[in-house]
C-alpha cells in the first residue's frame, strides 16, 4: 500500500470490507456486467489506495483512521425504522425520499406523481429501467481511482437513490431526501445518490440527516449531480445526527452551460464530519453558489474541502463558509479554486469566517487558488477570531445580559448563511435549532 502507516485496527477493518465484498459480489445474481465491473474496479482501487494516512496532504488535519475503529461493522440491520420520518420533514407541499441504512425505500417515501414526469427510484431499479442514462452518469464525476472513500462507496454501489428530472421538467415542490440509521451497532453505511437534471429543468433537493436514537454510524456517502444546460438546482444539506455519528460526504457536481447550482451545507452536530465538495462548471454562463455553516462543540471535528474547477469561461462562483467552534472542537476549511487556461472572465469569490468560543478550539483555514487564465476576478478571505468584546459590551450597555448578547451576535453571524436556505419551513426550523444549540452550555468533554 502506498501509505505505510495504516494501523492494525484499520487493516482488520479492511479485511472485513474485503470479506464482505466477496459475499456481496457472490450474491449479485443477474446483475449487469457493467455494475459488476464497476464494483470490482472500485474495490481494486480501494485496495491500492488504502485509507488516507497522515502523509496525505488532503487529510493533513483529519487523521481519519482515528475514527475507523475496530468496532466498526459493515451495516447488517434491515429492521424497520423505529422512528420513521423526522418530524421536521412532515411538511406540506414537498416530496419525500426515504432510505434506511443507505438503502432506498419506496414504501416509506412520498414521491411525485406520474404527471410530474420526474423519476425517483432506487439505483438498482434505475440500472434496470434507465440503463443507458444511469451508465452514462454513475461514477463519472465521482472518480474512484484517486480517492479511497469514493472507491469504497463505489465498490458496494447498488441500492442508493436515483432521481431524474428530464429535459424541460421541473419539480413543483422540494424533494426532501433522508436516511434513517437503525443499526444499533457502530456500522458503516454507504448512501449513494445520483441526480440527473436534464436541460431547462429545475428542482430543489433537500437532504436531511438527523439523529433520532443517536446513531453511532459511520456514514460514507457519495452524491453525484449532473446539471444539464440552462437548468437550475437548489441543494440544501443538513447534518445533525448527534455526537456519536461520523460522516464522510463526497459531493460531485457537473454543470453544463448556463446552469445554476446552489448548495448550502449546515452541520449542526456529529463527531467526525468531512465534506469533499467538488464542482465542475464545464460550460459558459454557469453560476455556482456554495454556502455552509458549521456549529461544532465538544470533541467534534469538521473538515470542509471544496474544489471549484472553472473549466470554461464566463462563469461565476461564490463561496461562503462560516464556522462557530466551541469546546475542544476542530474546524478545517480547504477551499481550492482552479481557473483553467482558457477560462477567461471568471468571477470566483471565496470567504471563510470562523468564530472560536473557547481557547481549546482550533481552526485551520487554507485557500488554494490556481489561476491559469489572465482575465479573471478571484478573491478569497479568511478570518478567525473570538466574539468581539466591544460588541458584547455595547449590547450589555443597552440592557442585554452577557449570554443574550453572545447569542444575538452568534445568531447574526450564522444568519447570513441560514437566510439563504431556499426553503421557508427548514429555515424557520434551523433558526430555532440553532438558538437551542447555541444557548446550551457546552460540555467540556464527552464520555
Amino acid at each position: 500500500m502506498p501509505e505505510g502507516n495504516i494501523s492494525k485496527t484499520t487493516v482488520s477493518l479492511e479485511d472485513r470490507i474485503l470479506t464482505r465484498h466477496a459475499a456481496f459480489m457472490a450474491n449479485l445474481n443477474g446483475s449487469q456486467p457493467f455494475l459488476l465491473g464497476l464494483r470490482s474496479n472500485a474495490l481494486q482501487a480501494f485496495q491500492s489506495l488504502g485509507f488516507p494516512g497522515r502523509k496525505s496532504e488532503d487529510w493533513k488535519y483529519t487523521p481519519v483512521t482515528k475514527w475507523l475503529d475496530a468496532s466498526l461493522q459493515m451495516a447488517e440491520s434491515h429492521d424497520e425504522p423505529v422512528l420513521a420520518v423526522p418530524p421536521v420533514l412532515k411538511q406540506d407541499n414537498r416530496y419525500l425520499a426515504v432510505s434506511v441504512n443507505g438503502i432506498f425505500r419506496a414504501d416509506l417515501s412520498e414521491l411525485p406523481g406520474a404527471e410530474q414526469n420526474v423519476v425517483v427510484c432506487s439505483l438498482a431499479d434505475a440500472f434496470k429501467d434507465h440503463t443507458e442514462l444511469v451508465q452514462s452518469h454513475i461514477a463519472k464525476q465521482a472518480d474512484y481511482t484517486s480517492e479511497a472513500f469514493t472507491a469504497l462507496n463505489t465498490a458496494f454501489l447498488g441500492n442508493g437513490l436515483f432521481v431524474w428530472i428530464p429535459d424541460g421538467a421541473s419539480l413543483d415542490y422540494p424533494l426532501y431526501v433522508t436516511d434513517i440509521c437503525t443499526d444499533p451497532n457502530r456500522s458503516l453505511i454507504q448512501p449513494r445518490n445520483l441526480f440527473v437534471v436534464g436541460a431547462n429543468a429545475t428542482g430543489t433537493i433537500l437532504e436531511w440527516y438527523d439523529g433520532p436514537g443517536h446513531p453511532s454510524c459511520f456514514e460514507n456517502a457519495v452524491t453525484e449531480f449532473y446539471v444539464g444546460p440552462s437548468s437550475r438546482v437548489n441543494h440544501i444539506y443538513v447534518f445533525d445526527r448527534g455526537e456519536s455519528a461520523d460522516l464522510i460526504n463526497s459531493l460531485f457536481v457537473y454543470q453544463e452551460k448556463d446552469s445554476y447550482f446552489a448548495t448550502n451545507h449546515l452541520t449542526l452536530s456529529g463527531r467526525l464530519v468531512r465534506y469533499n465538495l467538488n464542482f465542475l462548471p464545464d460550460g459558459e454562463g454557469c453560476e455556482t453558489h456554495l454556502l455552509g455553516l458549521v456549529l461544532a462543540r465538544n470533541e467534534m471535528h469538521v473538515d470542509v474541502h471544496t474544489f471549484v474547477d472553472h473549466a470554461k469561461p464566463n462563469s461565476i462562483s461564490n463561496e461562503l463558509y462560516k464556522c462557530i467552534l466551541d469546546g475542544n472542537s476542530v474546524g478545517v476549511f480547504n477551499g481550492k479554486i482552479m481557473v483553467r487556461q482558457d477560462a477567461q472572465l471568471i468571477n470566483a469569490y471565496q470567504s471563510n469566517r470562523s468564530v472560536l468560543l473557547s481557547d481549546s478550539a482550533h481552526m485551520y483555514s487554507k485557500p488554494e487558488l490556481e489561476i491559469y487564465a489572465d482575465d479573471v476576478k478571484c478573491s478569497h478571505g479568511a478570518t478567525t477570531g473570538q466574539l468581539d468584546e466591544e460588541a458584547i459590551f455595547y449590547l450589555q450597555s443597552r440592557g442585554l445580559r452577557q449570554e443574550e448578547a453572545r447569542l444575538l451576535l452568534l445568531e447574526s453571524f450564522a444568519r447570513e448563511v441560514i437566510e439563504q436556505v431556499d426553503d421557508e419551513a427548514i429555515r424557520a426550523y434551523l433558526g430555532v435549532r440553532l438558538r437551542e444549540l447555541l444557548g446550551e452550555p457546552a460540555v467540556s468533554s464527552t464520555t
Partner: protein
Amino acid sequence: MLRIENLHVSIEEEGTRILRGVNLEVNAGEVHAIMGPNGSGKSTLAAVLAGKAGYDITDGTVEYFGKDLLEMNPDERARDGLFLAFQYPVELPGVSMSNFLRQAVNRVREYRGQDELSAVDFLKLMKERAALINLDPSLIKRSVNEGFSGGEKKRNEIFQLAMLEPRLAILDETDSGLDIDAMRTVSDGVNKLRSEERAFIIITHYQRLLEYVIPDFVHVLVDGVIVRSGDKSLALELEAQGYDWLKKELAESAS
C-alpha cells in the same frame, strides 16, 4: 441620583493612573457638562460609569440611587436606567436594529416591572422616536451601525437613548465628528429628551455643543481631577482662552 466620591481609576495591567480623585454629584433633571483637554480622563469616566472592563478602581465610590454602581454588571446598570452614548458606536454586522432594540427595550421594561411590548407597539414606538430625532427610517431596517456615516452613528445613539428612556444619560463626545447641521439635530433631540426625572452628563472637548444644549453645570477635568466647576459661562471662558489658561492658573496657585 449619582454621587461619585474620590474616584481613582487605573488601566488594568499597565497600571497607568487616569482618574485621580474625581468628585461629582448629579441630581435628577440636571445637565452636567464635563470638559477637558485630550487625555484628561473624560472618556475613562464615562466608560467606568457604564461598567466597561479593563479598568482598576483603586479608590473611591460611586453611588447610583443609593446602590453601589461599581458592583453592578454593565447590563444591570443599563436596565436600571443608565445609558452611555458611545464616542465610537460599535458596528454589529448582521444584527438588525429592530431585533436588537426590541430585546433591549423589553429587558429594560421587564426590569421596571412593565409588560413586554407587542411587535406592533414596538414598531410604533420606533417610528415615533425616530421621527423625534429625525433619524432616517431606512436605518431602522439595517444592521446596527453597519455602514452608517459618522453622523448617522451618533444620531443612532441618541435614538437608542430615546427608545430606552434612561434616568441618567452619559453622552461621550457625541459632538465629535459632526458637522453643524448634524450637531443641531442631535442637540434638538437631546433637548426634547430633557426632563425633570432625567439627568445628563455631557462629555465634550469643545464648547460648541453647549450652545445648543445649555448645561446647568460645567466641570473641567484636567489630568484626572475636576479642577473647576461653574455654570455655562465657564464653558465660554474655556472656549475663549483654551485649557492652557486654566492649567497655567492652576500651576501658579499651586506654587
